């Protein structure tokens, strides 16, 4: 009998594009090892610094990957299951940045709350590795695994504040609904597999191009289920029910990661599947995404108004932002994809910054997230209030912030795809949403602080993180061209894979 290993035909593996993933996941495992060996002797900031270093390492290793893509063009590896293109590089960089910033924010937070430090960072990095997998996945099963890695870690992160009942409640809610959604996603994958005979997105696209499967019931049902599953991850209405509760209950740094990282990964997967895989049958899914976008915009903006908890407000606003991004997805054009990527980058910065501020303001126990706790922040901590204001205005889409260009790009894509009414509705929703950001600004600047408000301590980590995102927001607001170019490059490669089997 032949030796077992000799029988398998090992597929060609390009190692370079995998290095960022290996760095991220490897850093998590090494951290786990180090902590279990010498945990008690490490300084408290060690895990955070390690995570920041890992994130920066991913950023550094993403550069050669990007160069390689520029030279070779987009290609895939490991039997076509991994797509190497600028799109994935963009998302990888975004996720790495998110990890770095979240680690900075979490540093002071975990010490304040007395939570398990290293575990938090390990889960964070592993989750990000899952998100990166989603971004590169050219195979539906790989994509699903990436999604699960991402989600499972986040379920734990959400629930890990053991002293807060809200945290665990959020965790179980997120978990149950998340598992429900992944079941739908999986069923969708199975149906698509049945309809096309393949799990590989490149193959699926080829099949759809050659055979007219646009009216195949299996394919339609499969796409619908995939949309349910991914719509859940990106918190699109009507799959948004978890968002406010989870955002409110989860530890604030986790929320910043969820809003930025999880959403980005979710949209990356959405684009990969629907734009790269099902691009040929865009007519079938566009109307549905249109509906999701409108519903998300409307519900997100409207329901936010009646909330009194800042985290809840921002949760609804994240739903509204998801609606905006879906406007770009709905366009189903290259411009649309670029606009989505740009929006994701801009939103990541704003969301991380906003939740960083909330992390600082909420105080011991992570309890002070009511809008009252922000009252008079301008008088207590002018710089923090100013930074938060910049981020909120960016979320509202005020010029000279990154948020403006994000909306600009998305609306451009929609108008270019002749979805005028969608664009109008989106902008109207933006105005409604602006109201709720103003409520927060009003509380910070126009209300007097409570007389017995404790003095806020701003740890160094969150301060650095907020400074970075505010600078990013303003810099991109004034000169968005570099990021725009990156996003434009990223879209070009998405559909031009050279399959290597």
């Amino acid at each position, binding site marked *: 009998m032949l030796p077992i290993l000799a029988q398998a035909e090992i597929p060609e593996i390009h190692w370079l594009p995998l290095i960022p993933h290996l760095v991220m996941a490897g850093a998590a495992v090494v951290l786990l090892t180090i902590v279990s060996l010498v945990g008690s002797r490490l300084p408290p900031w060690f895990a955070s610094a390690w995570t920041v270093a890992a994130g920066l390492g991913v950023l550094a290793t993403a550069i050669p990957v990007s160069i390689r893509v520029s030279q070779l063009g987009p290609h895939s590896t490991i039997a076509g299951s991994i797509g190497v293109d600028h799109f994935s590089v963009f998302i990888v960089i975004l996720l790495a940045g998110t990890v770095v910033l979240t680690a900075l924010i979490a540093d002071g937070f975990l010490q304040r709350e007395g939570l398990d430090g290293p575990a938090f960072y390990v889960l964070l990095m592993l989750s990000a590795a899952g998100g990166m997998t989603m971004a590169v996945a050219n195979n539906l*099963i790989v994509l*699903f*695994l990436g999604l*699960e890695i991402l989600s*499972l870690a986040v*379920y*734990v992160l959400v*629930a890990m504040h*053991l002293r807060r*009942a*809200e945290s*665990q*409640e*959020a*965790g*179980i*809610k997120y*978990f*149950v609904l998340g*598992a*429900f959604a*992944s*079941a*739908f996603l*999986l*069923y969708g*994958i*199975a*149906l698509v*597999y*049945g309809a096309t*005979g*393949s*799990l590989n997105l490149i193959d699926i696209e080829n099949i759809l191009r050659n055979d007219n499967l646009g009216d195949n019931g299996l394919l339609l049902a499969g796409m619908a289920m995939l949309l349910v599953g991914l719509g859940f991850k990106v918190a699109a209405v009507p799959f948004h029910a978890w968002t*406010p*509760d989870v955002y*409110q*209950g989860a530890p604030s740094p986790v929320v910043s990661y969820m809003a930025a990282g999880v959403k980005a990964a979710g949209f990356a997967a959405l684009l990969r599947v629907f734009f790269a895989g099902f691009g040929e049958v865009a007519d079938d899914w566009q109307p549905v995404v249109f509906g999701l976008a409108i519903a998300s915009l409307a519900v997100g903006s409207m329901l936010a108004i009646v*909330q*009194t*908890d800042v985290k*809840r407000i921002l949760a609804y606003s994240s739903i509204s932002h998801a609606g905006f991004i879906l406007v770009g997805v709905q366009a189903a054009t290259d411009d649309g994809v670029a606009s989505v990527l740009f929006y994701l980058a801009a939103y990541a910065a704003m969301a991380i910054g906003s939740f960083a501020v909330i992390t600082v303001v909420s105080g011991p126990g992570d309890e002070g997230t009511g809008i009252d706790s922000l009252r008079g922040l301008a008088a207590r901590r002018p710089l923090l209030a100013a930074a938060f204001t910049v981020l909120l205005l960016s979320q509202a889409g005020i010029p000279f912030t990154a948020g403006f260009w994000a909306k600009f790009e998305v609306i451009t894509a929609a108008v270019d795809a002749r979805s005028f009414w969608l664009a109008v509705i989106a902008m109207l929703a933006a105005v409604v949403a602006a109201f709720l950001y103003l409520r927060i600004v009003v509380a910070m600047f126009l209300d007097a602080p409570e007389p017995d408000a404790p003095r806020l301590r701003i740890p160094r980590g969150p301060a650095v993180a907020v400074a970075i995102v505010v600078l990013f927001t303003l810099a991109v607001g004034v000169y968005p061209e570099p990021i725009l170019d990156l996003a434009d490059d990223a879209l070009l490669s998405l559909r031009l894979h050279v399959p290597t089997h």
Partner: protein
Amino acid sequence: MVTATWYLILAAGLFTIGAVGLLVRRNPLIMFMCVELMLNAVNLTFITFGRELNDIGGQVSVFFVLVVAAAEVVVGLAIVVAINRRRPQATADDLSALRG
């Protein structure tokens, strides 16, 4: 003779039962079990399609689904245990601190 459609319809039925169960039951543990039902339906679908398509990919997918199911259950039960330690005998209805 049993055709693939029979299996697929059985899977669809199982999936529906799981989904409905998850929506109507309030005990988190039973909700998890309903998720498992749904995943099983998916597995059956995968295997049926795999055989119809004469492709091993369906079975390999099921393998991954099993791994995911196991990992999910571990995490989910860990959360349930943590909740129960604080508040014994909680059902989904008792978890209502988060409202808005």
